[in-house]
Each structure stands twice: as C-alpha cells, then as structure tokens.
C-alpha cells in the first residue's frame, strides 16, 4: 500500500524539481519548488514524521518561499528581464551538475543500510520523541545550530544596514 504512494510522490518531486530548473520564468520556478516541498512533506508523512512534515511546510513553503516570491515580485523579475545564458554556459553547467550527481550516487550506493521504519507502530517521528532526542542526545549540535542561526541573522542585519558606524 505504501510503495505506490511513495513512487507517486517521488515521481512528482523529481518532475517538479526538473520543471523548477527548466522553466524560464522565475515565478514559475518558485511555484514548482513549492510543489516539490509538498511532495517531500508527503514523504515525511509516509515515514510517520508528521511534525517534520508540517514544520517543513510552515518553514519552507510558508515562509521562505513567500519571501522568494516577495523579492521576485518586488524586483519584478520575469522572462524578459532574466539574462539568457549562452549554450556554452548551459553545457558546462550541465556537465558540472552531472558529475556531482555521479559522485553523490557513487558515494551513497550500497554504503548506507537504510532500515525503513514500520509505519503503524513507528513513533520515531512524533514530536515527543523528536524533542527528547534533540534535547538529550543531540543537545550540543542543536544549541550550536541555534547560535549559528542567530549569528547569521545578526550578520544579515549588519550587511543590510548602509550607514554602518563601528
């Protein structure tokens, strides 16, 4: 029962990701990327990680992509204003990305044993367990990530200020 759903979601995410890269209009790219995020959230729900799924939607689809759209609309980027790359650039970009793909597939192939959690009884992704793991086993990386975010925010504000007086 789960496999067809997984395959459908995977197909949707790959298709929309491709459309995101290939579409000429930046706003369409953003919309395809949102669809990709929804397909990935569906995968989280298949793994019974409802909290991750909904946070994924809130953070990526609900906040970050809204900001992307906001900036695109504010700068009024469209098909006409977007600079078109020459065929040479496209070819070299394609080759570089393809090599990265080959490296990733080679690195991951057979290297990691993935155990698929049992769905009905698996409570791994529920918010209580996630919180317990984050605040006990992984508390140091979690706090470091938090401080990094704070530093990035302060840095963004500093860069954004024009008349900087240090």
């Amino acid at each position: 029962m789960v496999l067809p759903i997984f395959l459908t979601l995977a197909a949707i995410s790959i298709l929309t990701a491709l459309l995101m890269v290939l579409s000429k209009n930046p706003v369409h790219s953003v919309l395809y990327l949102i669809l990709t995020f929804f397909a990935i959230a569906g995968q989280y729900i298949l793994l019974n990680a409802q909290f991750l799924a909904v946070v994924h939607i809130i953070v990526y689809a609900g906040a970050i992509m809204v900001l992307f759209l906001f900036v695109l609309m504010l700068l009024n980027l469209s098909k006409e204003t977007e600079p078109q790359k020459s065929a040479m650039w496209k070819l070299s970009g394609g080759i570089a990305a393809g090599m990265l793909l080959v490296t990733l597939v080679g690195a991951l192939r057979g290297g990691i044993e993935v155990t698929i959690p049992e769905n009905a009884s698996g409570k791994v992704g529920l918010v209580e367990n996630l919180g317990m793991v984050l605040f006990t086993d992984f508390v140091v990386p979690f706090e470091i990530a938090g401080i990094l975010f704070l530093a990035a925010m302060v840095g963004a504000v500093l860069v954004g200020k024009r008349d900087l007086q240090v």
Partner: protein
Amino acid sequence: MSLILLFSLGFIIEKAVLIIALFALTLGVAAYSTYGERKIAAFFQDRLGPSNAGPWGLLQPLADGVKMFTKEDFVPNQSERWLYILAPGAFIFVALMASAVIPWGTTLTLGGLNWNLQVTDVNIGILYVVGLASLGVYGIMLGGWASNNKFSLYGAIRASSQMISYELAMGLSIIAIVMLSGSLSLKTIVDQQAGMWNVVYQPLGFILFLTCALAECNRAPFDMAECETELIGGYHTEYSAMKLGFFLFAEYINMFISCTVISCLYFGGYHFPGLDPNWLGGLMGPIILLSKSFFFIFVFMWIRWTLPRFRYDQLMHLGWKSLIPLAIVNMMLTGAGILFFGK
C-alpha cells in the same frame, strides 16, 4: 496510522458525511457573515442595512450569489492566464481545509450511531492550522501578480510582508499555549480547559493572538492588501464575477475559522461552566463552540467598523517592534510561571 489505508466502509462514510456537513456549515456561516457584516455596519453607522431581499433582508446572501455567478467573467488580456484562474481557487481551498482538525464537540449520538465530531485528531493539530494560515497568502500573491496591474501587485506585496511579520508573533503566542497544555493536539488543548479557560493564564497571549488573527485575515484595521483608498481594490482589482466572490468568500471563511481557533485555544472550545457538552445527544458542544465563535466574529466586525486603518509603516512597526517582543516576554513569563507554580 495514516498509512494503513484499510479503512472500513463505515469509517469512510462517517468521515465523508462529517466533512460535507462541515463544508456546508463553513460556507453557510461565511455567507451569513456577509449579511451580518452589513447589518452590523449599518447599526454602527445608524442606517438600516440590507432590508429588501426577503424578511429583514435575510435573502441578501442569495441575491449576492446570483449576482456573482451571472456577472461577466473577465480575464485581463496581459495576465498570466492560468495563475490568474488558479489563485482564487487556491485561496478558498486553503481556507476550507482548516476545519478538519477543529474539535467541534465530543460525540454526537444520532440515529443510534456515535459520530466523533472531529474529522481527524492529528497530534500536530495546531501546527496544521498555522501551516494553512501561512499558505493562505499564496492565493493573494498569485492573484495580485498574475493580474499584471500595479495596484494588484502592491496589494500582493503588502499582503505577503504583513503575513510574514504577524505570523511570528502568532506562532510565539501559540507556543505559550502549547507550553501550558504540553500538547499540539487541539482536542487535548480544549479538554484541558474543562476547569479553567486558558485566557485566565494567558491574557496577554490572547490579545496578541487576536491582533495577529485580525492581521492574518486581512481585516480592518489591517486590511492594507486591499485598502480601497490607496490601491483601488488591492490584489483583487482585476477580478470579477465568482473569482472575486471566491476571494471575498474565503476571507469570511478565514475569519470564521480564526474565531473558532481563538475559542478553542483561549476560551475552552466546547466547554462552558454549568453546561455539559454531552447534552442533547452531544449537540450542546457544537452549540457552545459556535456561540463563542459567533461572538468573536461580532468582535471582529465591531473592530472593523470602529477603528481607522493603520498606515503601512505603523503596521510594520507594531508587528516587529511591539507584538514580537511582547510575545517573547509572554513566552518567558509562561515558562517562569510553569517552573515556579506548576500548572
């Protein structure tokens, strides 16, 4: 839980009936909110309001519907045609989805069967509502952008920055509630308020949430996205007929859902002192919850027809420099309260 799709036929029928009933309820309340809005506006301005269509103008929403469906359905020549058509649909779709996780009551006994009055009790219910609230802005942004009109675009840009700003304070005030109840499920949050409503412990959080809900619903005094004195009609300037109707309707649906969520989070949901939600075969619960949310719909309208609209910079100032710090203080106070006094 969500995966083993071996549901029995009875389960599917039960849920389907409940979902259809909820859709009918939501759409009906939204339709009569337009009537209520006009009557209340008329009352505040010492007028009569709609009075010709039916007794006391009660058939006015029907007349509006006929008007919306029969007007010319116009698509601007230079627009992004598909996105222009998609936007109102996406907006109303997202607005209608939130009612699934709201606990409307306990159990309704009807025709010898027990109906659970909540479509699904997911253990992240309140986050689901927040997620839908944050997705709601896409309809507005796409509609405003696809119309290819500068006033629509201004409306869309204003709506998106407003949503982003007020979502933060809203999320932070919800966190305080979650800290109190220790659960993200709306059903659990409601059931814990059987003795004492959350508003007693969270007066500041309630005011913050109410303000943010007004802003998220694009209601005056925060209706910057469509303020007619500056932007003609804002993001729906280029829309007509039922596409415009979808936008307006979805705003009333959003208002109803927000009022219901406020009642569930801060005012005990289907609990009321001295009344048992199981009375009348379980019908008492929905009656209590709906009375509370109708009261808040009235408060929303009261605010709209009393307060003048904010200027845009004042709106941003209020959101970032007042509401968010207050919400953080509220969260800290709640944490300290739980630490020192228990719950």
